[in-house]
């Protein structure tokens, strides 16, 4: 087989480098919220404003428990935050479901629904 050696080299390259590159990549860097200490947790309820979220306001330095009321529908119930390279994602199926976020410093944090269609701002004061 004339190309036998070439095919062997292709397999070697793909599996050699592939095992290195895929090894540590994991399934995703997704975090389904989490427990961020026993400090005072502030509750935030998201509302929908036409095709986006209404702006939500929280205080700095306190962990956040996020839920969505019944005005939030469709893919907007699946909320995605990208905080310091970590993705916090949860499908808030009912108004009782919550997404836990760590304490944040002052600033405006953009978030979106999981399909990237609806957007909102979490304003930390």
């Amino acid at each position, binding site marked *: *087989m*004339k*190309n036998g050696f*070439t*095919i062997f*080299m*292709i397999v070697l*390259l*793909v599996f050699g*480098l*592939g095992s290195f*590159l*895929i090894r*540590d*990549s*994991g*399934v*995703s*860097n*997704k975090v389904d919220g989490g427990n961020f200490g026993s400090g005072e947790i502030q509750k935030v309820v998201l509302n929908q404003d036409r095709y986006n979220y209404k702006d939500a306001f929280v205080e700095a330095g306190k962990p956040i428990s996020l839920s969505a009321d019944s005005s939030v529908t469709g893919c907007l119930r*699946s909320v*995605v935050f*990208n*905080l310091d*390279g970590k993705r916090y*994602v949860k*499908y808030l199926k009912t108004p009782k479901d919550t997404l836990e976020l760590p304490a944040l410093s002052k600033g405006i944090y*953009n*978030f*979106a629904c*999981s*399909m*990237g269609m609806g*957007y909102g701002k979490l304003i930390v004061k």
Partner: protein
Amino acid sequence: MTLKEFTKELNGNNRVEGELIKAIFYSLFFSFGLFILLYYFKLQYIENFISKYSFYLFFAILSYAIVLPSIRQVRAYKNLTCMSGMMVGMTTGMIAGFLPGFFIGSTNGMLWGSVFGMGIGIFIGVWNGKCCGIMGIMEGLMAGFMGGIMGAMTAVMMINDNLKVAGLIVFLISSVIIFLLNFMIYKETKESERQVKEDYSLIIFISLILTAITIFFMVYGPRSILFG
């Protein structure tokens, strides 16, 4: 029977089909080489590089390696019939648009995944499709345009639903489509004489360019809110 002849021809000496596997090897070898070089000097210092980008980058490089040999195969015969040329333009445009769109869409979001996918899909689709004139060019243009957007959109919509598994499945199906395209070109040109004989520098050059652009775009490129 013809498929058997085609697989035999992949090991042959006379026709361009005998060079396809080597073209895949050269594309992979130089793309991975560039990646290792960049990783050693720069990329390893980027926080979470492996966990954030490596999977998608790896499959983007594999995607270029399966698409580019079809350019070599089409160039070897220069002119194809209208119907075959349209299939060539459409298939290469779609795959070359969808796969980069999907992998860039997974790291940079829908807009930039679409722009990237459309750019590469249209470029390769038109280049390959022009072997049969305006109809092939139009097919390449349309398929690249649609494939790029579809790839990025699929990636963004699957972000919370096993995106990496989807990436693997999409790549495997695309590989089968490209293999069948190579077979179709072989079948259509079986009686034709080879028009152009060339070395592998074009494949190597395009592989290096595409890999470099992909790495740059993934790591330093603009991204949507969803990706921070």
